[in-house]
């Protein structure tokens, strides 16, 4: 299918989300739409998928103008969309989800489950998308759930697939698998519109790159362009992708973890005898494929998960199995992995979120009564210091972009006196500009003598920030290496090879 967007303009009140956007996707092409969060990518895709109506401009499919009243029209014209947040029923099987809304039936309107399964097997074979049609969605890993979404679009005869930030939720391995699928779909003649803000992926998979910024197309690029070129087009200024760190001799231990054992929700030892030190003025980066116990380790450090055995010491104070309150007061800063679940109260104001874990500290409260003036003064100060883009400090934090939400957490944690900082996936889902910013803040704290533990599944981040890199595999530390270690060797450690075997 050849898709052409001509002069698409979409306004919300006085705000122009899309301004005269032109875009052409050729059959069998992987077309990347690159832009920061809030640049207008999702608005454009919602217009294309019939979920929003453009104020101006037209959509042409194979040269013929079309109008979509709703997403059903778009599906009938061969457009399929894989949303960032999956639209699947968790308790249904793969087959049930795929045929949902278009169920094949036998006599008396009974669901023809066998035919549904066969249809899916056939489509999976054609496009090399292996999924068991009888598996229940909630039991599948995220990567496979996404595959089901793609499968669903393909069974509805999609000729053009829109993938909205498809890699945000995937592990590196799953991302590689997705890239392979995209290439084979394109080879089979399907057109793909790939929306992302991750430069590496764009360069790996795109045929054509269109960059949008503040609702306008600001240029196009070849996949051969460097990351720095793409980043500066996207952000509108030069972006420093290399984090500058000054030499610093680490001080004494601020976090001491000894023989830690922590169980996950299923009762298995997700952390199985971990010992690790973080010293003042150094960044220890904890690398590893997701699901190897990093989440449980951090939760245990923050007092959110009981410790089975072993000890955690913070600046010489034993905080093993202490309450979150006690650990916060002992000065552990925590940037949680899931910021919307554990880090923020979305319905509350930016100002309240900036003091979420210190509401009783002077001057924010006195004798049980909150001092709102002090809360607001603090908010105004942090918004300025940390460049949080918000309409007002009284706006709910839900109205901020992901990057700015993360800045609220970073500002809150770094503005109180800390003895150590634990940051879990601190830049997941953020755009280049925000990543650069968060990295700079963390390094600044390290330069000023803070001990930092960073947990990240992005190897780039680990290599850029870590003074030492600890690799976690199957609940154990499989090695602690220097950042000059090659990617291959770290990869081997991530896969479970022993330190000696990796030749570090």
């Amino acid at each position, binding site marked *: 299918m050849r898709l052409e967007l001509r002069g698409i303009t979409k306004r*919300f*009140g*006085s*705000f122009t*989300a899309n301004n005269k956007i032109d875009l052409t996707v050729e059959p069998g092409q992987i077309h990347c739409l690159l832009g920061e969060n*809030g640049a207008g990518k999702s608005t454009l895709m919602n217009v294309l998928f019939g979920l929003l109506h453009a104020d101006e401009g037209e959509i042409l499919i194979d040269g013929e103008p079309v109008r979509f009243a709703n997403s059903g029209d778009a599906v009938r014209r061969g457009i399929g969309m894989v949303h960032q947040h999956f639209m699947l029923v968790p308790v249904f099987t793969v087959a049930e989800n795929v045929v949902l809304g278009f169920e094949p039936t036998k006599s008396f309107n009974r669901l023809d489950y066998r035919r549904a399964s066969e249809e899916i097997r056939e489509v999976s074979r054609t496009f090399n998308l292996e999924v068991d049609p009888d598996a229940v969605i909630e039991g599948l890993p995220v990567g496979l759930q996404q595959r089901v979404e793609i499968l669903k679009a393909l069974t509805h005869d999609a000729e053009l697939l829109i993938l909205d930030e498809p890699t945000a939720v995937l592990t590196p391995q799953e991302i590689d698998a997705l890239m392979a699928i995209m290439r084979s779909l394109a080879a089979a003649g399907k057109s793909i519109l790939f929306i992302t803000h991750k430069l590496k992926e764009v360069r790996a998979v795109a045929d054509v790159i269109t960059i949008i910024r*503040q609702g306008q197309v600001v240029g196009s690029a070849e996949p051969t362009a460097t990351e720095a070129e793409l980043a500066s087009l996207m952000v509108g200024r030069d972006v420093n992708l290399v984090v500058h760190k000054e030499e610093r001799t680490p001080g004494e231990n601020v976090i001491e973890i000894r023989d830690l054992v922590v169980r996950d929700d299923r009762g298995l030892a997700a952390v199985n005898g971990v010992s690790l030190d973080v010293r003042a003025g150094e960044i220890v980066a904890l690398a590893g494929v997701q699901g190897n116990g990093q989440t449980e380790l951090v939760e245990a450090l*923050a007092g*959110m998960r009981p410790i089975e055995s072993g000890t955690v010491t913070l600046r010489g104070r034993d905080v093993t199995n202490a*309450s*979150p*309150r*006690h*650990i*916060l*007061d002992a000065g552990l800063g*925590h940037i*949680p992995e899931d910021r919307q*679940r*554990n*880090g*923020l*109260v*979305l*319905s*509350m104001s930016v100002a*309240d979120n900036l003091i*979420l*874990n210190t*509401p*009783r500290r002077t001057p924010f*409260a006195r004798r*049980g*009564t*909150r001092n*709102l003036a002090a809360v607001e003064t603090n908010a105004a100060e942090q918004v300025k210091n940390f460049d949080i*883009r*918000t*309409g*007002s400090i009284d*706006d709910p934090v839900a*109205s*901020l*972009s992901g990057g*700015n939400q993360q800045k609220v957490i970073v500002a809150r944690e770094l503005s109180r006196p800390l003895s150590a900082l634990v940051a879990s996936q601190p830049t997941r889902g953020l755009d280049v500009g925000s990543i650069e910013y968060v990295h700079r803040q963390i390094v600044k704290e390290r330069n000023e003598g803070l001990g930092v533990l960073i947990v990240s599944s992005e190897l780039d981040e680990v290599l850029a920030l870590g003074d030492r890199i600890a690799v976690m595999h199957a609940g154990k530390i499989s090695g602690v290496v220097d950042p000059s270690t090659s990617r291959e060797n770290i990869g081997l450690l991530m896969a479970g090879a022993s330190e000696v075997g990796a030749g570090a």
Partner: protein
Amino acid sequence: MPSSPFKSIGALWRRLTSRGPVVVAIFALVLGLVVGAIVIITTSPVILSAWRGIFHGWTAPGHALKVTFDNVGAAYRTMFTGSVIDPQGFWHSLTTGKSWSTTLTPISETLTYATPLVIASIGVGIAFQTGIFNIGANGQAILGGVLGAAVGSLLHMPTVAHIPLTLVAGVAGGMLVGLVPGVLKAYTGAHEVIVTLMLNYVINGVLYLSLFSTALQLPNQSNDVSRTMDPSAQLAPIFGTASGLRVNYGLFVAIAVVAFAWWFLERSSLGFDFRVTGANPHAARASGINARTVIIVVFVISGGLAGLAGIVQAAGTTHFIDGGFLIGNAGIGFTAITVALLGRNRPMGIVWASLLFAALGVGGRAMQAATGIPLDLATIIQSAVVLFVATPVLVTEIFRLRTTSTSAVQLATQGWGS
């Protein structure tokens, strides 16, 4: 630049047609009254026979329409004059200075009914804001009434000590009942809806037991009626017994509770913990808020307020309790749940919702007396209003209120501009 009147009228219209919670509530009331009118039309024999007459050629369509308007109008008019004020009577009193007590009786009755309702609803609303569903406010109110009535009738002391002690006993009774689901949820994870709901039945039993006990039962009686509370323990009518107006000093207790609730939720550190817990329990835990403490304390506060509502009802209006105390239609603990929802769990919202519910109840009685339309119509309107508030999408669709979502998008993205 001075603002022109047109501009402010335009702003007023925009305010009226944007779907803020207040606006939705007002339109929901209008829709509730429309539903009530439909019920009147389809059940009133007079109106129905007038319409039937058209087919038989007895009456002209215009006449049927007039009968309809007259009857519906009379119903709603008596409802208003019976619960707020009768303009004619008011004018009469104003010009002659006479019969003020008759003129003020409707509004006094509405305030009398609203008084305990406000207190109980605030208790329920604080729990809701914390994410806790306290369905047991009625049982908490009953035990508050029982303990309060016991202190008020069995102990004897001067008013300055007796009234506070009676109210404290009421609060303690409610707290005691609230503590049970609180502790059970905090330490075993028992679901508060089940526990509080079931406790209501237990407390009903306690009410009967106490009413047949030698201590509390009215002497020389075999009925389930308690002793009368000492005058020193009663919340006296504000305008004196002679005025005949029942509105009593409990009103000031209610006002104090509203002020406390506002301070607690908006200004206190503990209230902040409560709101964080209600909005996102995971973030609350990560921020160092102790969920157990919050659960227990919120139940103590919520139950205490329900208990206070019970004793204010007994000490202010009936001065004794009996087997029908707060049971059935008088179960303010249950009405409080609806009122809290209607008032969006906010103190001032609850005040308006309580006044509305009390006025519909009081006015419904006046309407029943004057027009013969059953009191149940008031209940239908109350329920319809709550339904329409619970489904704001429906209300905004019916009145084509403009959504505020575009402005939200604007706000969200303003920070990114140039």
